[in-house]
C-alpha cells in the first residue's frame, strides 16, 4: 500500500510546486509508481511545471464529482511511464472539494501507487485542509527568510493539531555565500527555530528557473539542486543519505574563514 505525502508551506512562492514536481519525478526515477495531485483548485500550475499542460482532459474536480473515472483524469508523464499527474480545476474554487472527499481519493490511489504526492495551495484555509486530510506524511517547504519560517511554524502547529504522523522540513533556496557572511539564516538556524526533522536542503540554483521554463524537472541531474532533490527522494524511500556539502563550492576566502556556527 502506497504512502500519501503532502507538500505544504503556508507562505506562497517558496517552492512547493517545484518541490512536488522534482520529488515526484525523482521517485519515479527510483522506479516507484507515483501520482502527483495538484490540489490548488483555481490556481493550477503543477501541470506547466511538469510540462503536461497540453494534455489535460479531466481534472481533480471532475473525479470528485464523478464526471469521469480516476484513470481517465490521470495524465501520463512525458518521460516516465510510472509517473502520473492529476491536474487541478482551473475554473472552480476550493469549496468544490471537501477534506473527506480528498481522503477517499487518496485511499483509492494508494492501492495502485507507491507514492501519492499532493501539491498544497498556500494559506491555511480549506485548500490546505483538503490537501492534508488524507496524508501520512507532510513535507514543509520553507526558505531561510523570516516570513516563510514564521508561516512554516504555523503550518507545523496545524499539522500537529491534525495529528499528522510525520512532518519533515525542506529548506529551499539556501545561498551558502550569504550564509557564510552572516546575511542568511543557515539550515541549522531554521531547524533550531522550527524544531522538526530535516529531510532536505536545496541550494538556490538558476537551473531551477531553466528547468521550469522547459517544463522538465531537473531532479537527478548534475546541478546542485538536482542532486539535492534526488537525495530527498532517496530519504523518502528510506535510504540514509548524507546532506550535500554545499560549502565545498565556496572560493578560497570562503574556505579560509570557514563556516561560522
Amino acid at each position, binding site marked *: 500500500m502506497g504512502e500519501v505525502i503532502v507538500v505544504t508551506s503556508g507562505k506562497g512562492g517558496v517552492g512547493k510546486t517545484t518541490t512536488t514536481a522534482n520529488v515526484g519525478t525523482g521517485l519515479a526515477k527510483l522506479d516507484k509508481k507515483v501520482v502527483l495531485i495538484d490540489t490548488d483548485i483555481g490556481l493550477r500550475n503543477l501541470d506547466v511545471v511538469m510540462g503536461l499542460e497540453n494534455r489535460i482532459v479531466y481534472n481533480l474536480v471532475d473525479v470528485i464529482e464523478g464526471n469521469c473515472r480516476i484513470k481517465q483524469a490521470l495524465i501520463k508523464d512525458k518521460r516516465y511511464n510510472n509517473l502520473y499527474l492529476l491536474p487541478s480545476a482551473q475554473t472552480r474554487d476550493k469549496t468544490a472539494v471537501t477534506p473527506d472527499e480528498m481522503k477517499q481519493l487518496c485511499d483509492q490511489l494508494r492501492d495502485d501507487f507507491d507514492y501519492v504526492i499532493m501539491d498544497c495551495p498556500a494559506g491555511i484555509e480549506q485548500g490546505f485542509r483538503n490537501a492534508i486530510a488524507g496524508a501520512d506524511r507532510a513535507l514543509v517547504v520553507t526558505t531561510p527568510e523570516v516570513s516563510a519560517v514564521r508561516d512554516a*511554524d504555523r503550518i507545523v502547529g496545524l499539522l500537529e493539531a491534525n495529528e499528522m504522523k510525520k512532518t519533515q522540513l525542506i529548506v529551499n533556496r539556501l545561498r551558502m555565500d550569504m550564509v557564510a557572511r552572516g546575511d*542568511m*539564516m543557515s539550515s541549522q538556524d531554521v531547524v533550531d527555530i522550527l*524544531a522538526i526533522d530535516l529531510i532536505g536542503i536545496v541550494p538556490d540554483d538558476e537551473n531551477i528557473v531553466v528547468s521550469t521554463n522547459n517544463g522538465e524537472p531537473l531532479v537527478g541531474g548534475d546541478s546542485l539542486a538536482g542532486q539535492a532533490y534526488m537525495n530527498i527522494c532517496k530519504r523518502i524511500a528510506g535510504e540514509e543519505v548524507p546532506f550535500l556539502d554545499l560549502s565545498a563550492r565556496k572560493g578560497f576566502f570562503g574556505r579560509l574563514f570557514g563556516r561560522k556556527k
Partner: protein
Amino acid sequence: MSFLDIFKKKTVSSSNIAKGRLQLALASDRAGCSPEIMEKIKNDIINVISKYIEIDVAGLDIKIQQTEGENGEGLVPVLFANIPVKEIRRG
C-alpha cells in the same frame, strides 16, 4: 558600555537578528498570545502594581520569550516583564 561592547554590537549579523526576531515572534504565536492580549495583560499589571508602588508606565515592557528550561527540557516560553519603578521620593 565598554569599548568592546561597541565593537560587538557592530558584528551582529543580519542572520542572527532574523533568528532572534523569529524566536520572539514565534514564542508569542505558539503561546496563542496576540498583541491585543499582551496589551490587556500589560494594562492589568499596571493597575495591580500601581496600587502599591509608582511605576514608569511608559518604560514598561512585557513580552513572551524563550529561555533554556531549568530541567533540561530545552527552550520553554516565559512571560518576561520589565517594570521600571519611579524614583522613590523621600519624605
